[in-house]
């Protein structure tokens, strides 16, 4: 028979006891805590703690079952102190949330100081959504309606006898789980007595819109956009391209990968023209795909892009001498940020194929560009070094401001002290990168110094100086010789005291043409702005004087421009008024022109009702303009004026 080891049993018993104790303790803790909660003098009455409440503006009600000092009550709602806006009641306090609550979890922290004893603090959590189906759903809209009738005008002044305009501005959002749908638009109606020069056209116009569908999952996210977009890829490919079309973005957080594709109309659109913007015709659209992959906790990023398309001539807001063109581009970017913005590096290599005029027989040309940039911010100091090369035929559809046939470097440094900010920049570039013997090579060297003094808050001072020099080399003959220096100096000082702002600015610039043509020019401008701004009255005059001089002819032109803008309201905004005027005086020293121009306009409106039927704000008013042009050389003066009766209304409403 086996002998029982009591020593072992004793240890086993102890172990089981400890195990039971360790199991019992948390259970007891929970029991004790629930007893504590039940016994706590601070109880959340509304909303119910922990449950899902359907409420756009939450109502909070807390019972405090002991005397407390309201002055020492501290209530934090989602971290914001709301103690100062609570309604203290005999039972505790209440609060109707002032704004829409974002859907999700909310925390209410209540700290009371009993008349005798230590602080007692309790925290409650609850969550909200804004509808039974959706967590967040709203549509904020505003309609503007305007009718204008001409009541008097000068003879031959081309103004419509009546005009009607209306605009519906709408912002809508719908959220459910990881899905989010947004729609923003401005739908406009325009009509007038005379045919307009579009845009806008007569009738309804979709001024702009953007439809966004977003899925934000834990591992993947997805964004689909359609409407008026801005596409930003890399500096040397598609950058700041604002057009109408579609954009898709897919992101995998596990793979640290983002893929994008876009297709936009190359013409800038207004109204319903051009449809949805995207399409398959590469002559009228710009389309592309791009991808990002990140490594080492997103400290290193690799991006590649391919874009192609075609552009036509001028479109809305754009005027160009270029003809129809098409092309494609590949771009590769490698960027790192290893030391938390202290050392940021970026390298880009791009290859483009571009046909600057599709109507001729000259085929598209292939070329490349590259750049390397190192930058960073260390404490108060910032720095940047950039080297870039653009081939003579490097051009990109959708980025017309790129400067081709150029290579060089830029160095920048900055220091940001408490009261002093200093920035320095130096650059040197040359064109004709392939050293084509038919053309000269032009070297551009530029240095800039900017300094801002903010020691006196009411007296900020800014100084700036830039010197640029141009020198040509390898000229085929003297005709192509260039030798120019340009000095530009700017200084400004402001005095800000209460409603007063006094500003004074001087710009001086001298371009010295050192070749035989000697086409030197100087321009100097003085601007003085004494502005007075209150909430119900704003007076903003300005006085500017400019003298520009062409040294070769000795002729100088003077331009004096006083302006005045006044706006204000009376009787709690029952009456609003405004006035704007510019008087410009142009004089040439050789008497070739001598012209005075006056442009004025004013309006006065009376608010007929505020929130009529809860949403309508109609007003009636009068507006007018008077313009005078006096050509003192041709002895030709014209006067024109017009007055209009204006009926308008704003109708904001939230669905």
């Amino acid at each position, binding site marked *: 028979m086996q002998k029982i080891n009591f020593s072992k049993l004793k240890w086993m018993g102890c172990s089981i006891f400890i195990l039971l104790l360790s199991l019992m303790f948390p259970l007891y803790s929970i029991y004790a805590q629930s007893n504590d909660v039940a016994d706590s003098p601070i109880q959340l009455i509304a909303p119910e703690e922990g449950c899902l409440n359907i409420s756009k503006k939450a109502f909070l009600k807390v019972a405090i079952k002991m005397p407390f000092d309201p002055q020492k009550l501290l209530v934090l709602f989602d971290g914001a102190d709301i103690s100062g806006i609570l309604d203290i009641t005999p039972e505790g306090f209440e609060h109707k949330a002032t704004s829409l609550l974002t859907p999700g979890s909310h925390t209410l922290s209540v700290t009371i100081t009993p008349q005798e004893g230590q602080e007692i603090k309790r925290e409650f959590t609850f969550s909200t959504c804004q509808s039974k189906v959706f967590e967040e759903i709203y549509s904020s809209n505003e309609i503007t309606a305007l009718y204008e009738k001409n009541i008097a005008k000068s003879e031959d002044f081309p103004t419509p006898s009546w005009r009607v305009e209306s605009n519906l501005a709408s912002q809508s959002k719908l959220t459910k789980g990881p899905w989010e749908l947004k729609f923003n638009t401005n739908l406009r109606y325009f009509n007038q007595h005379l045919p307009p020069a579009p845009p806008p056209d007569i009738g309804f116009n979709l001024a702009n819109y953007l439809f966004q569908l977003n899925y934000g999952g834990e591992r993947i996210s997805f964004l689909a956009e359609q409407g008026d977009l801005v596409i930003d890829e890399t500096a040397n490919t598609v950058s700041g391209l604002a057009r109408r079309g579609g954009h898709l973005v897919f992101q995998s957080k596990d793979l640290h990968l983002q893929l994008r594709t876009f297709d936009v109309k190359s013409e800038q659109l207004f109204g319903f023209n051009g449809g949805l913007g995207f399409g398959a015709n590469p002559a009228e659209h710009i389309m592309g795909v791009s991808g990002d992959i990140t490594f080492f906790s997103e400290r290193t990023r690799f991006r590649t892009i391919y874009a192609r398309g075609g552009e036509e001539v001028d479109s*809305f807001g754009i005027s160009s001498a270029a003809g129809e063109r098409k092309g494609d581009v590949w771009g590769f970017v490698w960027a790192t940020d290893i030391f938390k913005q202290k050392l940021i590096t970026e390298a880009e290599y791009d290859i483009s194929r571009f046909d600057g005029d599709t109507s001729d027989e000259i085929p598209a040309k292939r070329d490349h560009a590259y750049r390397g940039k190192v930058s960073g911010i260390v404490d108060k100091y910032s720095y940047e070094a950039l080297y870039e090369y653009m081939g003579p035929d490097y051009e990109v559809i959708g980025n017309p401001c790129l400067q081709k046939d150029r290579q060089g470097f830029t160095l920048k440094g900055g220091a940001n002290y408490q009261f002093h900010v200093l920035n320095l920049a130096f650059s040197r570039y040359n064109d004709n990168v392939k050293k084509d013997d038919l053309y000269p090579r032009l070297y551009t060297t530029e240095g800039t110094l900017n300094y801002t003094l903010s020691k006196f808050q009411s007296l900020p001072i800014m100084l700036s100086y830039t010197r640029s020099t141009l020198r040509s080399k390898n000229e085929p003959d003297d005709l192509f010789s260039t030798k120019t220096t340009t000095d530009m100096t700017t200084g400004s000082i402001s005095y800000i005291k209460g409603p007063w702002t006094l500003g004074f600015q001087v710009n001086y610039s001298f371009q010295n043409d050192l070749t035989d043509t000697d086409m030197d020019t100087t321009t100097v401008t003085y601007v003085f702005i004494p502005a007075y701004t*209150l909430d119900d009255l704003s007076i903003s005059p300005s006085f500017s004087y400019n003298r520009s001089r062409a040294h070769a002819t000795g002729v100088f032109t003077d331009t004096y421009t006083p302006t005045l803008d006044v706006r204000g309201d009376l009787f709690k905004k029952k009456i609003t008024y405004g006035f704007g005027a510019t008087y410009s005086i142009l004089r040439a020293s050789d008497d070739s022109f001598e012209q005075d121009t006056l442009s004025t306009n004013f309006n006065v409106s009376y608010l007929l009702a505020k929130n009529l039927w809860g949403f309508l704000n109609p007003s009636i008013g009068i507006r007018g303009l008077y313009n005078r042009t006096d050509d003192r050389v041709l002895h030709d003066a014209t006067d024109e004026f017009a007055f209009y009766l204006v009926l308008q209304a704003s109708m904001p409403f939230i669905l």
Partner: protein
Amino acid sequence: MCLFVILAGFLFSIQTGEAVVNTSPSSIKIPRSTQTANRVTYNIRSLDGCTAGVSPRGEFISGGYNLGIINSPLSLSLNLILPDEIGIGSVTETVTVPIAVVKRAEQLGLNRFQYQRVFNMTGCPPSTETGLVQIAVTTEAAADFSITRLQLYFENHRAEVTVKKNQPGLKAFIDIRFTGSGLLKGYWEVDGRILSYVDRHLVSGGSVTIESPEIPALPTLDTGTHLVRFVITNPIHSSLPPEAIYFVAAEEFEKRTIQLISPKDGSAENYLPVTFRWEEREELTMYLVEFFEEKGQKPIFSAYVKRPFYVLPSPVLKNTFLAGKRYFWSIKGFDPDNKDIGQSSVFQFTFK
């Protein structure tokens, strides 16, 4: 050499003893790979009583080579000045040199060529008069000062925006793509009213962005559509300036200024519950005090109050703020409808 070219142009422009065609300018320098629009004026002086002239096309030529044509007729009428019956007239055209013409010249190893217009004169014995412009091709930076592209837009990067009535700070921007160097002269104009003049030296070809002035700002007084333009007067720009439109909605942009009282901007405070005070506004019924570690970042702590002061509670001070550190604070104000219509400037303070 330059004088030689001008002289050659002048000599070329004189075709017969009976008439003179002067072109202005007589020579231009264009960029090798960007199309530029150039205004050329032909001044014709006829001694034999011609009353009109017609040119069916313009031609780009060099020696025996025809580099390209512009199939656009040009006609002018001459005013007869008595008693000698001298006919005088002028006509202007915008000559855009196609890139293909420059490429063809490059293939021939040429960096200069001529643009020629032959006018068939009428009202006199049959004759032709020829106007010539010398064209030199060079790089963008060395070319004549000229504008090649303009794009006008607002902060949303589009040439269209919607704003509220009396909204301050509306700005327009113009991207100017140019060749050469020179003095840019132009002005901002809204609905025909000149707002301000711009005089600025541009250097070495490239692009520049100019923004509309802060004062006078783009006016937002009148509800409805408004038209903005940037009109360039030098260099002479033949294309119509682009236009951008902004719509002023009838709803008022309401922002009331709240003056901060204490602590003063830049002050150093003891590490104790500080009282923050500001000017009370009659139309504001609630204030939001916000504290920041850096301007423009999310607040680290905020508080809603009805009265125009706030005492930082001790628990918040200890848990959120550190002694020896710099912070920023500002106030927002709300009307009875809880619309955010008040805003203060941002003040800085440091806990000792």
